[in-house]
């Protein structure tokens, strides 16, 4: 492909600073594409303007699915397919079914939610990430600005990044 994407990459060395810098840079009229950090910084996604994640909804739905599946299985096998009298109990022995129903719910929630997480972030074994700076998994906080989304010149954006605390500003093309 000849169409290359050109990025300005601001490198920060402090988590508090990068959090403040995001607001400052945004207020100066620069569109930040993404910030890459070695550990989670609370409030960073909100500061950048990412929409709130819907992962909890997915988790809840998978939990409901799990409960329905496992409960239907128990009900089908114990009441309809091969009913057995066990300890003189009803075929529909609801209290006895709670443990397995619970485990099934947890199993579906965990796997469904983690699966959703991997798919939504397109993470899979062997994927090659687009790396702006190798130190972003160590001790540097990387702010990536996509030049295609910004009207300002590179020099202007660079000075804004530096003013907000970036210790380096690099150009990266993909």
């Amino acid at each position, binding site marked *: 492909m000849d169409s290359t994407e050109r990025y300005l990459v601001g490198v920060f060395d402090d988590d508090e600073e990068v959090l403040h810098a995001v607001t400052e840079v945004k207020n100066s009229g620069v569109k930040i594409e993404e910030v890459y950090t070695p550990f989670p910084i609370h409030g960073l996604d909100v500061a*950048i303007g990412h929409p709130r994640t819907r992962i909890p909804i997915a988790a809840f739905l998978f939990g409901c699915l799990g409960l329905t599946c496992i409960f239907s299985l128990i009900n089908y*096998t114990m009441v309809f397919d091969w009913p057995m009298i066990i300890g003189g109990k009803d075929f529909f*022995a609801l209290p006895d*079914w709670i443990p*397995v129903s619970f485990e099934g719910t*947890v199993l579906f929630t*965990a796997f469904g939610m983690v699966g959703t997480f991997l798919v939504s972030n397109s993470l899979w074994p062997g994927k090659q990430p687009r790396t702006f700076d*190798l130190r972003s*998994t160590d001790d540097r906080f990387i702010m990536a600005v996509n030049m295609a989304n910004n009207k300002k010149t590179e020099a202007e954006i660079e000075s804004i990044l530096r003013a907000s605390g970036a210790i380096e500003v690099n150009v990266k093309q993909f």
Partner: protein
Amino acid sequence: MSHVVSPIRETLVSGGKSYHDVTNDICKQVEGEPTKEWKIAFGVSCLVFAYGAYCLGYTWWQGIGVWGLNKTVGWAWDITNFVWWVGIGHAGTLISAVLLLFRQKWRTSINRSAEAMTIFAVLCAASFILAHMGRPWLFHWALPLPNTFGSLWVNFNSPLVWDVFAISTYLSVSLVFWYLGLVPDLATIRDRAQTKASKFWYGAFSLGWNGSAKTWARYEYVSLILAGISTPLVLSVHTIVSMDFATSVIPGWHTTIFPPYFVAGAIFSGFAMVQSLLLITRVVFKLEDYITIEHIEMMNIIVTVTGSIVGIAYLTEFFIAWYSGVEYESYCFINRATGPYWWAYWMMMTCNVISPQLFWFKKIRQSILVSFILSVVVNVGMWFERFVIIVSSLHRDYLPSSWAMFTPTMYDIGDYIFSFGLFFTLFFLFAKFLPVINMFEVKSVMRGVSTNFPAKKKSSGDKSKETVH
């Protein structure tokens, strides 16, 4: 991110580490050549594993007749070992899930190895489940699959079936939790990798992690929800294990106190095992700055609390046996304390009830040597607890002519040795090839709690205290 931390809190990371120091200190083990100590320890555990594998193989080949079981004592070392390992396997998820929900920051240095330990312990437990089936190749009969004789299904009213679901769910969810926690750290190793092999393997397993703000935001929700569902899960697992006993009508087993009593015992033994392993790991890998006296003390406090709960449970059982007026129940307990297995009972009482009370003294709580010895003592005691519950309740049943004693054979012992071999072989592999401390979580709590955080960062940390999220 801004942590407002009370000045009376002890520091969690000492030695004035920067973020980069954390990466270096933890990655060093993974990137360097294995040390001589590691090779020796790994070699020994492989030998133990090999001997155990022979014994277990023989057991599978010949059947469980090679064990010391008899007509009266139908469960002994197999289920004792199973319950013991499952109990130990509770600490990891407890540390990472429950302590996450309670926002206990000291968990960050110990959760990774505790979770690894959990998974290995549950695998060890599973080996006894398979072995005690007698025909392990038919283990799928415990799953809800339509069988060859028509569609006769498993009995969902049976605690043994609940256990199949509980253990397998617990193992797989713990594995997911652990692996997900590893992904960002694997990415750190990937980005530092020098050799082709480590670039490939750590690259493959880090799933293309890039640490973007969007990913982290989702990641934190996923961790929180996983912690939220793992907390009742971990409690349910040992509750269900206890119901294997409590729903029977055997005196000594048929008690309603079992679920909370077993869960407390599980936490007790699990934390003791984490303590034993961490005290060794911190010395071998020189992690004294990350696993500090503060961490050791916190663990000891939890051991004391859960040990006291277990002690109260022992006394309550005795009281209820008398108060219920059921003579079989009373006899069972008198027999436990004064019968032929009195030594096992008093071993349990001494190790589990008396020894953790020493931790009331701050000096003892902070002594590394004493902590290590007591953590081993606790697990010896917890093994005897399960042995007492299982064997002493069975060996003198309602018919005195069938009273019997249980003596382990070399295969009972060998299968137990197998589980140790498996556990330590896996643990040493983990300690060599994966980061033993959760780097990103340690980094995320460092600002508030690390000593001598480099001067420049400290000032910006103070500035941002106004913006607490």
